[in-house]
């Protein structure tokens, strides 16, 4: 379908706004009529010929509301806001989404879209994650961000939010696909992340702004999360969880699925372990995972050097390796929290001098005080 997209955009938006129409109906209408504008210009009889009475009435009502000013006016009003609308015929409409079965008719966007040439990985998982899941999600997101890979997730509680926050902290690109309107922050405790994503990443949704969070809408958005990414990494999932729906969709869409293994007795890792048994990749290390799937080369080559963030990320990674020879307590810190007792024993430093150095590192963001007596390295 190739149209003159600029003139079609207002009509696509109008169609999106018609209440009582489903995604499938929209696609059908556009296919029968040829373009969104053609749908708008159809007569009531023509609508009734292809649609049930109720839907035809809904369309008529929507057209009447536009009145004499036409559909363009409504769209112009909408464009004054910060949210943009990218219908399927828009050249910026993510190519990855075009390939999935049941693609969204259009996307509402606050922020920016994921780069076409930049590889993207979806990190998803349970909402009530364990500390293990939290740590794995953070690490994965940080490493991916450092490599310039986009992190896509659903901004939900638990793994989703944690990985997106970590990606932002690492200076990477991250995009959230919501199951409600992009102007609504759900869950509310992720307000800080939501605001940051608007500025530094992107918030996407196929639902009209103002759509509230409804349980039924969330599984559907999962197909967009997996659709936008080249690989889906599942950090923690229970045996029956929404996360596994996303995994199924990813497989359906032909995406790679990786799972972080866990203890077999851990209910939060049951879903992941089950996936591994069914043939999902085992995410032992991000490096390995990327190599095995080759997604890093796949897109970077065509991109000619990768994104700027990616370059920087790798550099900073090297920088960190160089610091291994650096004197002081930082040498003894690890990504796993270590207690002061152990640090003192290993470094042989005086207790207070050590505390002072640790605090300095914390202020410089090189270390983190996990709890009162435990520290760990950060990046």
């Amino acid at each position, binding site marked *: 379908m190739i149209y003159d997209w600029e003139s079609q955009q207002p009509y696509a938006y109008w169609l999106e706004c018609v209440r009582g129409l489903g995604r499938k109906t929209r696609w059908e209408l556009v296919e029968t009529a040829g373009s969104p504008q053609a749908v708008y210009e159809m007569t009531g009889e023509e609508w009734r010929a292809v649609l049930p009475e109720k839907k035809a009435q809904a369309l008529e009502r929507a057209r009447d509301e536009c009145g004499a000013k036409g559909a363009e006016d409504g769209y112009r009003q909408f464009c004054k806001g910060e949210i943009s609308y990218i219908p399927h015929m828009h050249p910026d409409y993510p190519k990855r989404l075009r390939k999935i079965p049941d693609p969204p008719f259009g996307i509402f966007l606050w922020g920016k879209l994921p780069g076409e040439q930049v590889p993207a990985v979806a990190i998803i998982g349970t909402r*009530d*994650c*364990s*500390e*293990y899941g*939290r*740590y794995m999600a953070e690490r994965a997101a940080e490493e991916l961000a450092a490599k310039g890979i986009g992190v896509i997730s659903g901004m939900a*509680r*638990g793994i989703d939010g*944690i990985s997106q*926050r970590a990606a932002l902290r690492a200076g990477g690109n991250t995009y959230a696909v919501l199951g409600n309107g992009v102007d609504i922050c759900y869950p509310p*405790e*992720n*307000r*800080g*992340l939501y605001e940051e994503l608007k500025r530094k990443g992107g918030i996407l949704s196929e639902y009209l702004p103002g759509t509230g969070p409804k349980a039924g809408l969330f599984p559907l958005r999962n197909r967009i999360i997996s659709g936008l990414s080249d690989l889906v990494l599942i950090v923690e999932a229970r045996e029956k969880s929404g996360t596994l729906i996303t995994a199924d969709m990813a497989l359906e869409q032909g995406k790679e699925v990786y799972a972080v293994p866990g203890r077999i007795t*851990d209910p*939060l890792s049951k879903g992941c372990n089950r996936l591994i048994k069914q043939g999902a990749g085992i995410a032992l290390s991000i490096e390995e995972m990327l190599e095995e799937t080759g997604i890093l080369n796949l897109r970077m080559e065509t991109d000619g050097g990768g994104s700027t963030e990616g370059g920087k990320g790798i550099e900073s990674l090297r920088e960190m390796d160089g610091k291994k020879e650096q004197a002081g307590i930082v040498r003894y810190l690890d990504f796993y*929290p270590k*207690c*002061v*007792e152990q640090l*003192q024993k290993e470094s042989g430093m005086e*207790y*207070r*001098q050590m*505390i*002072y150095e*640790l*605090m*300095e590192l*914390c*202020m410089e*963001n090189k270390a983190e*005080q*996990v*709890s*009162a*007596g*435990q520290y760990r390295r950060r990046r």
Partner: protein
Amino acid sequence: MFSTISTAAICGMEAVMIQAEVDVSQGLPSFQMVGYLGSEVKEAGERVRVALKNMGITIPPMRITVNLSPADIRKGGTGYDLPVAVGILQALGHVEAQQTEKVLFVGELSLNGEVNEVRGVLPMVRAARAEGIVRCIVPWENENEGALIPDMEIIGVSSLEEVAELLKGKGCKKRKRDDLKGTGRKGTDRKGTGERNKPASLQCDRIGGEGQIPDFAEVSGQAGAKRAAEIAAAGFHNLLLFGPPGSGKTMIAKRIPGILPELTKEESLEVSSVYSISGLLSRRNPFIFTRPFLSPHHTITAQALSGGGTHPKPGVISLAHKGVLFLDEMPEFGSKVLDMLRQPLEEKRIRIARLGGSYEYPADFMLVGAMNPCPCGYYPDMGRCRCTQTAIRRYQEHLSGPILDRIDICAEVLALSMEELASGSGQAGETSADIRSRVLRARNIQEKRGGRFNAALTPEEISCFCELDREGRKLLEKAFGKMKLSARAYYRILRVARTIADLDGSKKIGKMHLAEAVSCRMAGSRYWNETGADDR
């Protein structure tokens, strides 16, 4: 015939002088007691009558009226038996009026005429001295307690007969305390022990008795937690210890009294008054000279902790006055009980309003809490902890923000590995005496500065005393920006830094002091993350 005897009543922390007026006159034989009496005081009449009879004094069939004046103060307790009995003796002419002038009587009578111990003798004697009383006749068990007040003649008696002898004819013969020890101990040998069985709930974990405090040398490893305890003791900061079960939180907390500076004389008197009112002093331990250490079980009610009852009595927090209140398994206490501590922690005293009046008790204690970081206890050891983030948060939310706000120092007690335990037992750690000498030095500096403990410094005093050197200021600025500290956290860090500098004997607060203070702040732990809910 009419007589007036001085005695005293306890109202909150203070004693009020009471006059026991007895009138014996013609009329239908009766025994009447008036003056807003509690039921235990109403019973006094019966005890007095029988005690007098058993002493060999027959009460003539006359109309006896007893009034405890002022009549608008509610009278409770059993200390009125003795003054009423003496009043009757005087009214009947067995004792001369001049013998009871400027003499305070207090004591409970048993039916055979023995004088039993009562509560609150210490504040009573103090009030009596202020009223110009020169001599106090108190139960034998309470004698040493009363003797703490200088310039007052305290006579301990064990029976009504002894009192009558004392007052008869020869006047109050001044007897040396040593003589008294052996006298009048007839009858039951219950008194021989010098201690009455006290209800277990009221018993202090440790009153007096220096040797019972365990020593820090027995704690192997735990440098961080020990250091935190030292800082807390030096500045009287509230402390929260957390760590996995069995790591030694309780062990460390129990050793804290051993490194606290001794009570000063005034403090000691204050603490002893509270114990006197609670009836926890005895002849053997008439005086509290070491800092109290109380560790109530977590099933304690808010009333027991705060003090209360229709006729209020000091609660556990008042018994911990100038000492340590140790709450083991703090989240188990329930938020209602813990939130009750908010006001006392701020004001260092508690006001209790009840039917009988409103009373104020001192409650300047050092709060030491111990808790597991999560329901299973092993968080953040991810290898063992199986708690979900939500479960951990819910567990930690038992401690409300306002309570956490009042805790200056947060320390982690770590689970020791096998080898650490094995190696630790060989080498002796620092003894409590060593740590204490450093604490005392820091306390001396604080005393010279103004007397207050650092934990009680006001913002004005902080700006005056907590001078930072250049590097320290730079570090604080960085910390402020990085950690998004609140104003309260800022003052808290400065108070702790001041204590650390005092321990060092340093006049200015340096970067090392500050860094350590920052490292033991509350928010430093993941548990109460700076970014709050947004990070969960």
